[in-house]
């Protein structure tokens, strides 16, 4: 919503400065988005060309002597064809910024002749697109004075960013009413129209919605005969131009003026072009109309139109039709002032892609009580500017306005805002805003005026008081303290999410945040793609499905980096994946991906040894780091060979807690997966299902278990077993551990060897067994017995034999 200061002052008696007005507007909820105080036009002065002579060295240039009101004329070189002695125009001295050419003038030298300024065109001042010549002013224009001030071009323009709850402020009058209520002046009451109407309006109007809900709560129409539709007067044109509208002709300009002055959009039909009576109805499917913007729109029954015997003449409340529009030849004009269903207007505007000043107002809700007065005021303007004979108005469908009544305790203001406003002051504010008050004491009935459809409860009334008194009057008050040391505020899942992030970052990985939606093909490849997780209106075809896994997003991200020349990247993300469309099917997953040689120790070549390409064990280590950071019972977890289909079947694993609970997967990727994602490796990744890790047991104390330290020396013994190639190292360790759970403190695998010497399909696994005697030093016999038990156990459980 735009307005000018002088326009506002038509409705508001005030001594306030522009600055005060602007600040108050924002303070009462009419946020000022921009103010153009036209200061840029101030330096341009009125000047008179005294003499004009041909430039000695250029055919199209003249050398002017210009009286700028300073007493001594200045010399200006000018190329305008209309520059001549005696012309009065707008002059810019050196040092002036000229907006239309984005240049600050300096003393120039044009083909050997000095030029001390410039005579300007309208385009150079950004007043219009006119650039055929310099501005020509009437003879009485006062030389030496400010051009903008003289031409009243210095009227500051205020732009308000209006919230949807303020239809009352879509007109200058409504804005003035709000300012007056806030104490910034007095609202001027417009005089009632005084014209004499005669005869019935010959065009009848019917509302025809059949058995569907009416989209038109009221329609008023009047014919004015014998008008002369020329240009509108200069004051009206200037105001319209100032707010960015192009003057067209008086009748159209009047409708635009009323739209902004009263927030009352109108439409004018050229009566000569209207065939028969008007019907307000739903459009028929496929019906078309050529609108005033020169475009043809195809309509449907969700759209309300005004039609005559020719067909659709206007898209109701949004845009008129080209056919019956008014031009200079119009002599009889039909003026329409109607009410439209706001939701329907919003939908129509959106579906047709039309944004107009009428739609802007009707979708917010135009004052129903302004319908008939708006028609009267518009008629008066038509008579004033175009002459003519008005008929009586015709009003159909309007049932009047029944105000909403809110029972309101004035103490409510303090309850919600903390601000102590005396009850009488609140009631006075309501009255100034046009609300009615019934009753006395601190509980009253407040009736809501027709222009405030947004107000329907106590809280709305509190807002009215608050914005008029000023939110800055409310002093901050501390929220009551809990008066205790704060306890833990995060849930276990929140703590684990946080720990997972930090644990992975500490391993040299960078946290990515990727989109929750991925292409359908990728969703399907990672176990998703169900119809219930498919967006009906994705923003792009490749953002169509909610992700079943974080890995596709990370693989794509790694590939983007590789395509930029950074192939060694380690990324992770801790976020949601979606197994279904209900809350408990949203998972919390930590996933990571390493590419190239981005291993824990570092990447790329180094004098101490180049980093190796990443592989399944890098991913496994990352997965376990997350599990440990999240407090999973790592000692109880099992790793099974093989993961879901997107992994390399022989280089992936699944981490389980018991037979059923899957806590994670890890591995290198299946070549088909990488092909589908258009990615290349080496790549290894993992996912840990953070939400599947069981809650830690509640403990009564934080005391740690007693530390038992043996006083006997720990001993290490090495064993190498030859086993079939597919025997898992884990089972050998497990068998060895089982030989004596008390004495054996740990088993680690320190070498894997495959070679012809071992035989076809065999491998050697070397383990180091840590033995911790507890109550005595072990004898050589004790060790031999233990070793024999280890060899026996491994043999029994894995078929392994001690390597010779």
């Amino acid at each position, binding site marked *: 919503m735009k307005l000018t200061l002088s326009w506002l002052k038509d409705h508001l008696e005030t001594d306030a400065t522009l600055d005060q007005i602007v600040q108050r507007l*924002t303070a*009462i*909820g009419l*946020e000022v988005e921009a103010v153009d105080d036209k200061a840029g036009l101030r330096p341009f002065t009125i000047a008179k060309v005294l003499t004009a002579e041909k430039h000695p060295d250029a055919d199209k240039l003249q050398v002017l002597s210009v009286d700028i009101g300073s007493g001594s004329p200045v010399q200006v070189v000018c190329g305008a064809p209309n520059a001549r002695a005696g012309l009065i125009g707008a002059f810019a001295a050196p040092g002036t910024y000229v907006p239309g050419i984005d240049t600050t003038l300096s003393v120039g030298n044009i083909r050997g002749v000095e030029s001390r300024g410039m005579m300007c065109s309208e385009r150079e001042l950004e007043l219009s697109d006119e650039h055929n010549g310099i501005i020509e002013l009437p003879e009485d224009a006062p030389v030496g004075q400010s051009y903008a001030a003289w031409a009243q071009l210095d009227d500051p323009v205020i732009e308000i960013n209006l919230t949807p709850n*303020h239809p009352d402020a879509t007109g200058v009058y409504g804005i003035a009413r709000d300012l007056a209520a806030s104490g910034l002046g007095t609202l001027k009451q417009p005089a009632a129209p005084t014209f004499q109407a005669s005869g019935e309006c010959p065009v009848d109007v019917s509302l025809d919605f059949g058995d569907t809900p009416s989209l038109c709560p009221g329609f008023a129409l009047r014919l004015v005969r014998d008008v002369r539709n020329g240009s509108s007067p200069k004051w009206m044109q200037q105001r319209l131009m100032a707010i960015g509208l192009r003057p067209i002709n008086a009748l159209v300009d009047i409708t635009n003026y009323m739209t902004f002055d009263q927030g009352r959009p109108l439409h004018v039909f050229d009566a000569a072009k209207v065939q028969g009576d008007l019907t307000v109805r739903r459009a028929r499917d496929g019906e078309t109309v050529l609108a005033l913007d020169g475009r043809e729109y195809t309509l449907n029954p969700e759209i309300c139109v005004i039609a005559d015997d020719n067909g659709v003449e206007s898209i109701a409340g949004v845009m008129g039709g080209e056919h019956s529009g008014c031009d200079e030849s119009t002599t009889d004009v039909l003026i329409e002032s109607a009410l439209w269903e706001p939701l329907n207007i*919003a*939908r129509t505007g*959106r579906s047709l892609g039309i944004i107009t000043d009428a739609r802007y107002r009707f979708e917010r809700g135009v004052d129903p009580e302004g319908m008939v007065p708006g028609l009267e005021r518009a008629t008066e303007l038509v008579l004033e500017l175009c002459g003519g004979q008005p008929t009586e108005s015709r009003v159909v469908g309007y049932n009047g306005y029944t105000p909403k009544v809110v029972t309101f305790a004035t103490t409510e203001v303090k*309850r*919600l*805002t903390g*601000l102590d406003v005396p009850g009488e002051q609140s009631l006075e504010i309501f009255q100034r805003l046009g609300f009615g008050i019934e009753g006395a004491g601190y509980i009253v009935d407040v009736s809501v005026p027709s222009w405030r459809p*947004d107000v329907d*409860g106590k*809280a*709305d009334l*509190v*807002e009215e008081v*608050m914005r008029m008194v000023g*939110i800055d009057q*409310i*002093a*901050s*008050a501390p*929220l*009551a303290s809990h008066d205790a040391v704060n306890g833990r*505020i*995060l849930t276990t899942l929140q703590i684990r999410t*946080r720990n997972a*992030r930090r644990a992975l*970052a*500490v*391993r*040299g*990985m*960078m*946290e990515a945040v*990727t*989109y*929750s*939606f991925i292409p359908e093909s990728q969703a399907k490849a990672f176990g998703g793609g169900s119809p*219930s*997780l*498919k967006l*009906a*209106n994705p*923003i792009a075809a490749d953002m169509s499905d909610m992700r079943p896994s974080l890995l596709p997003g990370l693989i794509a991200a790694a590939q*983007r*980096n590789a395509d930029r020349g950074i192939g060694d990247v*380690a*990324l992770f993300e801790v976020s*949601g994946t979606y197994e279904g*469309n209900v*809350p408990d099917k*949203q998972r919390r997953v930590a996933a990571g991906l390493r590419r190239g040689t981005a291993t*824990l*120790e*570092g990447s790329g070549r180094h*004098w*101490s040894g180049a980093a190796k390409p990443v592989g399944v064990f890098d991913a496994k280590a990352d997965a376990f780091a997350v599990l440990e950071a999240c407090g999973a019972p790592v000692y109880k977890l099992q790793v099974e060979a093989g993961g879901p289909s997107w992994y390399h079947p022989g280089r992936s694993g699944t981490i389980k807690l018991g037979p059923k609970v899957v806590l994670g997967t890890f591995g290198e990727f299946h070549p088909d997966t990488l092909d589908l994602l258009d990615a290349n490796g080496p790549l290894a990744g993992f996912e840990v299902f953070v939400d599947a890790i069981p809650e830690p047991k509640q403990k009564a104390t934080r005391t740690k278990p007693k530390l038992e330290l043996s006083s006997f020396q720990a001993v290490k013994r090495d064993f190498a077993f030859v086993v079939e190639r597919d025997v898992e190292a884990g089972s050998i360790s497990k068998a060895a551990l089982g030989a004596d759970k008390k004495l054996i403190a740990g088993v680690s695998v320190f070498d894997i060897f495959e070679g012809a010497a071992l035989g076809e399909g065999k491998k050697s696994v070397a383990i180091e067994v840590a033995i911790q005697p507890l109550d005595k030093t072990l004898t050589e016999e004790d060790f031999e017995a233990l070793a024999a038990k280890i060899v026996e156990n491994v043999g029994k459980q894995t078929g392994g034999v001690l390597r010779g």
Partner: protein
Amino acid sequence: MDVITNDLQTLEAGVMAEIASASDEASLEAVRVGALGKKGTISEKLKTLGGMSAEERQVQGPAINGLKNRVTEALAARKSELRQVAVTARLAAEKLDVTLPVRQSPAERGRIHPISQVIDEIAAIFGDLGFTIAEGPDIETDHYNFTALNFPEGHPAREMHDTFFFQPDEKGERKLLRTHTSPVQIRTMETQQPPIRIVIPGKTYRQDSDATHSPMFHQVEGLVVDKSANIANLKWVLEEFCKAFFEVPSVTMRFRPSFFPFTEPSMEVDIQCDRSRPGEVRFGEGSDWMEILGCGMVHPNVLRAGGLDPDEYQGFAWGMGIDRIAMLKYGMPDLRAFFDADVRWLQHYGFRPLDMPTLFGGLST
């Protein structure tokens, strides 16, 4: 001087000369064996003492033993000298170029995304004010995202234009991606009796994509419901938050009446700042205003939707963009870069994993 004495002196001079000329520990050992070994020259002399008369022994004993002691000492001194030389030589040989670079620690290479870091900062601040962190699902129902939050039927936000919808299910219900974190307000009120103090960080989605909008973004929202929370308290909470978050001693905030369906009265909040330096916003100084959040008193219809009586309970709520306040605080220019996972961006704008925001240690020091 007799012959024997003369003989001893010659022997001593010879052995001492050999000791002095021994060039390593091995040749020195050979000298020792030659002099003091079982058949060494001095050992042989000692053996002669047994065959001497008492008078002779009284003279020769001290002389030979004295010789032995001096040679032993000379051997030890020379040995120590030779070891010193050997150690010096070894150390010289073992010299390495310590200017060679070592690999950077993984903890220095890793990065936390600014969104996660800022969420941790927010949790640190509101934890101190007695708030807990609430979360909710990204996939929501029309009820939680709109109806319960007092969006009228036909509100533009409910259109496909603004909101991501899923295909209707067999019951005709159409799920959607939440457009704000506010559904968690309702979910919390349904399960928790007041007093309620929560902040809700999370992902939100809107049908928007350009330089300043992303179809996925992050919001944080706060909710306080009890029997007295009012706008004066709301102002205090937001002022305290902004001071703490932007780490400035004071902020000036401007509350403007505004409109949201789920609050009444509603306000937008601007924060005073200085934007005169390119790419940098300074809070607590300057003369510009920057819009930073929306807030208001929880609308009575929203309290009712959460099962609370608006004449008994009251409260306030506010919401702001996590991405946006992160951009403002840390000077990140482009929202889309947040979701691109460009490691150069992450390396530059991300946070070191051990830089955990706390109030006692400073949020970002």
